[in-house]
């Protein structure tokens, strides 16, 4: 009996070891396949067509980078997209592979969908004209676009802390700053979001899962979460779906478009 358990434990360690080896190191990206690239380009072209037809020139756009179904989440990552001289540019925050650092990138629509997504689908929230105008003023200003950016990255950062910032959190806080010009920092952006009724995504992550994430991934931390929530397994972070829901509930969204292949 003891032997069986020891064998099982040893097997678990064997499974774990390759992951441990990659902690804090580069991404395990596979070379893109012809099929994946062709589909990514096709979705990008179709999305640009839908965006042009919408008449919008600033939107919030999301992708299904991975299957988050078991966490009851659909979209995994969001960014802004704006149109300039007939061409669309995505502005979003990316975690530098396997590290606790992130940066803001401007990319073409093709790059957005060539990241080996789980599903070739995108959601586009078209804000009201006033919201678009305010966002545009921020996104096209080299200083303002970075005003809410914190490089310290935590994939599961707490929604009401400024210690770390994950990708969707940068979008949400930049949105807040664009809507309320008096906002000067992340604390004020978060206060505005609370006041406007933003509700974070709640994940139920037990102690063993948290321990595993903290120990073996450079880009996961829980020390920004309040103890009473952390120790009751309640992790409040910013899921892409929660941002879409907020845009709709707050009246900032005019229409929503979903594009599939």
């Amino acid at each position: 009996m003891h032997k069986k358990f020891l064998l099982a434990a040893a097997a678990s360690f064997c499974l774990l070891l390759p992951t441990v080896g990659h902690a804090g190191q580069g991404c395990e990206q596979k070379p893109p396949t012809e099929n994946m690239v062709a589909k990514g380009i096709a979705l990008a072209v179709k999305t640009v067509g839908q965006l042009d037809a919408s008449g919008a020139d600033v939107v919030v756009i999301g992708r299904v980078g991975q299957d988050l179904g078991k966490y009851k989440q659909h979209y995994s990552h969001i960014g802004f997209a704006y149109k300039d001289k007939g061409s669309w540019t995505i502005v979003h925050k990316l975690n530098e592979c396997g590290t606790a650092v992130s940066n803001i990138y401007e990319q073409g629509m093709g790059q957005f969908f060539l990241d080996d997504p789980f599903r070739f689908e995108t959601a586009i929230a078209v804000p009201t004209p006033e919201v678009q105008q305010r966002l545009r003023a921020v996104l096209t200003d080299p200083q303002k676009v970075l005003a809410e950016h914190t490089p310290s990255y935590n994939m599961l950062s707490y929604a009401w802390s400024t210690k770390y910032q994950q990708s969707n959190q940068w979008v949400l806080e930049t949105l807040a700053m664009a809507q309320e010009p008096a906002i000067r920092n992340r604390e004020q952006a978060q206060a505005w979001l609370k006041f406007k009724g933003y509700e974070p995504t709640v994940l139920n992550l037990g102690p063993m899962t948290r321990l595993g994430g903290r120990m073996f991934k450079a880009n996961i931390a829980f020390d920004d979460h309040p103890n009473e929530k952390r120790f009751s397994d309640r992790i409040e972070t910013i899921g892409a779906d929660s941002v879409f829901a907020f845009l709709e509930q707050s009246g900032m969204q005019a229409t929503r478009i979903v594009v599939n292949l």
Partner: protein
Amino acid sequence: MNTSPLSFVRTLALSCALSCTLLSNPVAAQSTASDASAISVVASVVAPAMFISEGGEYLVKGVEASGKGSVYVLEKIGTGVRGSVTVSANASGAASVGVGASIKATATSAGMLLVSAGQVLAIIPNELGKALMKSRKIS
């Protein structure tokens, strides 16, 4: 307690199993990047007219490093005609090929894909492709 070492091992095994589950499918992982480009872009093509644009299959006759990236000398199968393409520094996870590998060029709406064994080495973007494939760190 007699059972505590066993209990510890069991807890540890459970922890490992749970963390493996989490780590292989990290919840709410937004996105990662090394250089943020999912695909390499061809910086320049030195070849006779239509060498790439009409599509076809090629053999890699040479690979050299240059200041702009890797220069691949290609020979079109069946014609013996040669040309070269310079692929900008490889994107993370990009395919790499050596001398003797075969490559095919296939058309997409964003430009020609250079494909080896089903994996994309790079794209030669047309005007649309240039807009779709741009990538710049601004922070």
